């Protein structure tokens, strides 16, 4: 029945990128309801703006960018909580909630600004490169690189404040904290 229908394209995007998007959201939202809402809102946006979704793996970066904005707006938009994702909501309640509260290091991480945490997470959790981060954040590559460097440095400083004995975290952390990197 004619050229690829929107349904088909959406299904391809969804099946290819759902795990990545769900992982991204799961690592950033806390309650199962929030996770389900943000996933649902992210893909609803993709559906409504299907023609804006880039092809190939760039779609994943685009979806991260949408999910990031949804997360940022989410708690101001409670009334938009839809009756979607009912079964997903139930499934999510069975997900392990444990994020290793890695003692002081985690505490240091929590002390960072949202922006810093996001930059570090995009690298360490999503495995993105500098140019990819620039795409998700909608900034230039140079800006992404600089902001990432500063975020790493601030985390190292937070760590140093909490735990002057940084040897457990590796030499590079120590050198970053001392500012000679």
């Amino acid at each position, binding site marked *: 029945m004619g050229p690829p229908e929107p349904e088909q394209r959406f299904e391809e995007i969804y099946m290819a990128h759902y795990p990545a998007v769900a992982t991204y959201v799961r690592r950033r939202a806390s309650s199962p309801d929030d996770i389900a809402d943000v996933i649902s809102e992210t893909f609803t946006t993709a559906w409504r703006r299907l023609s804006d979704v880039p092809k190939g793996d760039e779609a994943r970066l685009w979806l991260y960018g949408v999910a990031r904005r949804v997360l940022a707006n989410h708690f101001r938009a409670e009334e938009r909580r839809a009756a979607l994702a009912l079964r*997903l909501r139930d499934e999510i309640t069975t997900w392990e909630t444990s994020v290793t509260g890695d003692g002081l290091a985690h505490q240091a991480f929590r002390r960072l600004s949202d922006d810093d945490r996001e930059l570090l997470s995009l690298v360490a959790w999503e495995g993105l490169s500098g140019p990819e981060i620039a795409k998700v954040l909608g900034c230039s590559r140079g800006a992404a690189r600089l902001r990432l460097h500063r975020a790493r440095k601030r985390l190292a400083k937070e760590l140093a404040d909490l735990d002057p004995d940084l040897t457990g975290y590796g030499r590079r952390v120590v050198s970053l904290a001392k500012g000679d990197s």
Partner: protein
Amino acid sequence: MTRDIDALVARFAAPPVTEVSEGARELMHDIMSTAEPAPRRTRRRLSLRVAIPAGALLTAAVLAMSWLLPTSSAVALDIKREGGYYIIAIKDLYADPESYETQLRAVGLNISLRVIPTTPALEGSVFPTSPDKRHLPEIQGINPPGQCGKMDGCAIGVKIPVGFKGTAHIDVGRKARPGERYESTTSFDAKGEPMHCVPYYNKSVAEVRAMLRERGVSIEEFIVTDPDSKDARDYDVADSVPDSWLVHGGTLNEPGSATIVVHEKPMPQKNIDNLNAANGCPSS
């Protein structure tokens, strides 16, 4: 040089989601069927339905009738075998889809059925599809004799050939309750819709707002799309636009609430003629 920091941060990551679960698939289908579609989708859906002759079109009236019957038992469907067909009447429009499916399976049909709230033109529509989303003409609505003022028929039931061995999903349109979003909608000038044959094309937003108000409809949002653009996907969504802009079309989202398509520029007379011809309305 920064690997240690990154490795440290990596430890705080919750485990990855590795599969598209049942719930995730369900969400995907929910989004495609319940989210307000982009304008391109509305148009496609419209043309798809218009292209399908009588076969696609029949279920609202069935619903309207069965709806009046007392639901004495917990049975959601009434299934009879007659002349090589299963004749199915929906006794409970609000039953859990699983209970429909259980009854259909009991007679050997691998068919799922949903009764969805739709815009008036699609109330009573029967829309059967295969798993790869093709329309299945062998499954039909049962239309009562007489006139039907709807775009997609006025079905009072569904009939399925006894030998049907495939897998199918059937959407049946019902009237929405107040405040309930339509899961399927079409242009608000289609047959059965409030603006059918109302000469509103190229009227100002202010004028059309008044026309809609007379019909109990208010404007929820605006889609701004240039009539000269070749790309139907090229549009913006706005909460408000100048009252002097011109209206090209619109869609109901739920009872009493519409999205309208507008632009500064008028739409060409040729398009207006085509729309009037397609809708069976006199040219304006």
